[in-house]
Structure formats: C-alpha cells, structure tokens
C-alpha cells in the first residue's frame, strides 16, 4: 500500500521552502511530485515598471547567494544590445567578485550538506571559513551578501592594490583551511556511507533531463559556461571539474574541487589585472533581442532580454540553474530510501528563490 509523505515546505535541512509529495511503499520512494510557488514573487514583471538601471538591483535579488553573477549576466545582455565595450579592468573585477561568490556559495552548501547528515562540526567549520570570504566582500563592496558592484557599462567600485594583495592573502588562508577539511571529508566513513551510490544520475539521464552545473559535471559531462569565455574568463586557463560517478558523492567532490579551482582563478586574475577605467559611458536605449549565458555556482544561468527602444525593457526572462535541476531531482528520487531524500535534495544544491523568481 502506498503512503504519501509530505517533505517541506518547512523542513530542518532546507533553508528554503520546497515541497515534495513523496509516494512511498514501505521505505522506498516510488514517486516524487513537487509543489513550487512558495517563493514566487514574479519579479520578471517588474521590468515593466522599473527602468533598465533599476533592474540591475532587482535581478541581484533573484538570489542572494549568487547576486553578483545575476547582475553580471544582465549587464552583459544590455551591453550586448547597445554595443558597449566594457573596460578590461571592469571585466576582471566582475569575475573576481563572481569567483568569490562561487567560493562562499560552495562553502555554504558544504555546510548545509554536513548539517543534513548530522555532522554539526563540519557545518560550523565550513561556515567559519566562509566568513573570511564574506569579510572580503564587505571590505571591498560595502555589503556582505548583495554587493551591488555591477552597473551597465562596468563596475561601481574599484579595488586598490592593497585590497587585491589582501584578497590573495585570504585566498591562501582559505586553501590551508580547505586542506584540513578535505582530509575529514574524503576519508570519513559516515560521509561516504551517506553519499556514495545515493541519487545516481547517469551521463545519459543528466544530459537528456537538461541538468546544469555540478549536477551535469558530476555525471561526466564536461560543460561549463565559463568555457565560452565571457567576461575575463577568456584570459584565464582552467579546465572544467568533472567526476564520472553521478552520485551525491561525485557532486560533492565537483563542488569541493571547484573551490580550489576558484582559488586558482582568483590568483590568475589578480596576477593579470590591467589598470584603467572601470566603467564605460552609457547613452541611449537598447533595442533587439539577446540571450546571454554564464556559470553560476549552481550551473548555467541564461538571460533573455527583449527591448524596443522604450524606457522600460519589453521582457526579461531568467532561466536559473535550479530550475533546470528540478527534473533530474524528480528522476533521482524514485527508488531511493526515505532517509536518503534530504541528502539527494541537497545534493542538487537547490536554490528555490532562483527557481521561482
């Protein structure tokens, strides 16, 4: 006989409201049905009452965790439509802040995962390390989470050489701290017990279900939007982090290795950052349609903007990575045990405010 168990919206492992209706037979999940809409605000419609400069602040609040990357992608769209050449230094600064966001997001997620399998001390340590990144954001941009550095044509703030040197120092500290966590994470019996072989998504499934980001790379597909070379990524050497197994453990390792990758990218950026202007002049109104993509901590982010030369933009459409990762989640849940549901749900790094906007 099938039992239906509701999971969420208010659930201890989820910081955000996601509701899953789980159809169980004994302990085995047979089917999972999602209910979304708890965080739906409809902010894409705000494009019709806010002009394109104000929209930068709105899109930053699609998701507080990766706000900088949202604003960056939105600005890329408008700049593409208007043919604005962004100064090189601004591109570098945008990407430095983006990579800092990626680090704090992955550390945050690592903490939540540890919390989900009851490893309270790792949760605390991951978040303690993360605070170093938050300090950098606060010192360089004035706010901890939503840093509002992007504007159309460039960035609002510059980083002084002292600040850049300090960022390098913080990044070094981070690396030492991560090495300490790595030993615990990779050698611990209970971590492996909870994640290895749980929530398997094969290469074929991941690709066909349109998974994005670490979810896709954890299943062996080497796709990273940063490879398209937007912003300052074209000046940087890096290879996408790929794991073959497609289980929760593989996704954990993708994110953990991406932390090291981000550290490396920040070092390269700071070594190569050119001097010069940080913002170009913006004049006129955009017209036309454009699609821009970028890589968020959670995966591929896509913006579609349509403008008609009016004061307001005609349509802004945001496709966020978690939105793409919901179908793979629904495919992974059937067949797993009830006790594994929180780990599987967390292993896609769900960001519900992104998904629903």
């Amino acid at each position, binding site marked *: 006989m099938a039992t239906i168990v509701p999971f969420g919206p208010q659930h201890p492992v989820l910081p955000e409201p996601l509701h899953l209706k789980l159809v169980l037979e004994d302990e085995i999940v047979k089917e999972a*049905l999602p209910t*979304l*809409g708890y965080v*739906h605000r*409809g902010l*894409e*419609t705000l494009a019709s009452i806010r002009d394109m400069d104000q929209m930068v602040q709105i899109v930053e609040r699609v998701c507080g965790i990766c706000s900088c990357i949202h604003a960056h992608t939105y600005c890329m769209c408008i700049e*593409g*439509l208007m043919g604005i050449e962004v100064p090189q230094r601004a591109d570098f600064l945008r990407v430095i802040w983006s990579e800092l966001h990626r680090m704090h997001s992955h550390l945050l997620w690592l903490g939540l995962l540890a919390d989900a399998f009851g490893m309270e001390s790792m949760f605390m340590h991951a978040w303690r390390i993360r605070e170093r990144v938050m300090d950098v954001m606060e010192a360089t941009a004035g706010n901890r989470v939503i840093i509002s550095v992007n504007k159309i044509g460039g960035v609002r703030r510059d980083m002084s050489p002292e600040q850049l040197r300090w960022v390098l120092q913080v990044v070094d500290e981070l690396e030492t701290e991560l090495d300490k966590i790595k030993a615990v994470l990779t050698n611990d019996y209970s971590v492996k017990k909870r994640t290895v072989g749980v929530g398997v998504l094969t290469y074929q499934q991941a*690709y*066909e*279900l*349109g998974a994005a980001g670490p979810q896709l790379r954890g299943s062996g597909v080497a*796709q990273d*939007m940063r*490879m*398209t070379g937007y912003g300052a990524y074209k000046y940087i050497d890096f290879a996408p982090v790929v794991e073959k197994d497609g289980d929760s453990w593989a996704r954990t390792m993708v994110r953990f290795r991406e932390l090291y990758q981000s550290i490396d990218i920040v070092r390269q950026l700071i070594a190569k950052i050119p001097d010069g202007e940080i913002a170009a002049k913006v004049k006129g109104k955009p017209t*036309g*349609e*454009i*699609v821009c*993509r970028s890589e968020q901590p959670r995966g*591929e982010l*896509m913006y*579609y903007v*349509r403008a008609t030369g009016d004061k307001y933009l*005609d*349509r802004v*459409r945001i*496709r966020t990575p978690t*939105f*793409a990762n*919901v*179908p793979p989640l629904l*495919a992974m849940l059937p067949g797993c045990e009830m006790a594994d549901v929180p780990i599987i749900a967390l292993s896609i790094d769900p960001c519900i405010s992104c998904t*629903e906007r």
Partner: protein
Amino acid sequence: MAFETMNLVKGQLSSEVLALKNKGYRFVTMTCVDLGDSFDLLYHFDLDLKLTHLRLNVAKADRVVPSISGIYFAALVIENETQDHFGITFDGLALDFGGHFYLEEEVKKFPFCKFTVNKAESAGEGA
C-alpha cells in the same frame, strides 16, 4: 537581432524538436514573449556550448500548443510556468498542474500578459 532563430509553424514543432534531440542537443529552456497581438515561444537548445533557437508564433486567439515534454521531460517545468503566466495550454503535458504551478486559486489573472485574460474563461476554452 543578436541571434538567429528558425521560424516554425505549429505542426512542425514536434518533428523539429525530435530532430534536434536525435542530433544530441540539450534542452536549455523556453521563453514566452507577449508581442501584444500574439505570443512568441522561443525554444533554446544547446550543443557543445552553442545555442540553437526555434521560434513559434502563437496567435492570441488560439492558445493551445503541443507539449514537447514527451520528447524532453525537462520541458515540463517551463511549460507549467508558461501556463501559469501566459495562459497558454500545452497539449499532452507530462505532469499538468493546471495553471496552479506557482499561483494559488486566488490569483485570477495571467500576470505576464499585456492584455487581460480571465482564468475562468480560458479554462472553459481549454475544456
């Protein structure tokens, strides 16, 4: 125009999407744009970091489009969202929330439309 699109009519949609799937494309998403008197549905597909776009124009009067969720299961999320926001009905949707994917019953209008459509009316049309 910042990107090229392939314009389609309704009958071609399923066969074109199936052809793209056989070529190994990954479904990225769909975008619905209200043009005032009609809708544009843009389907975005990815292959090796290159995007391909299909454009389907839907008249304001008939808002029924064949669903591609049978071909790409991933399309069901965005198709349900479009049902909520624009009142377009997708025929053969794998998991149909009936226009209440995001929105509660209290919300009577399709919020993203520039013209006003009453929900009760459209439900009648869909039936």
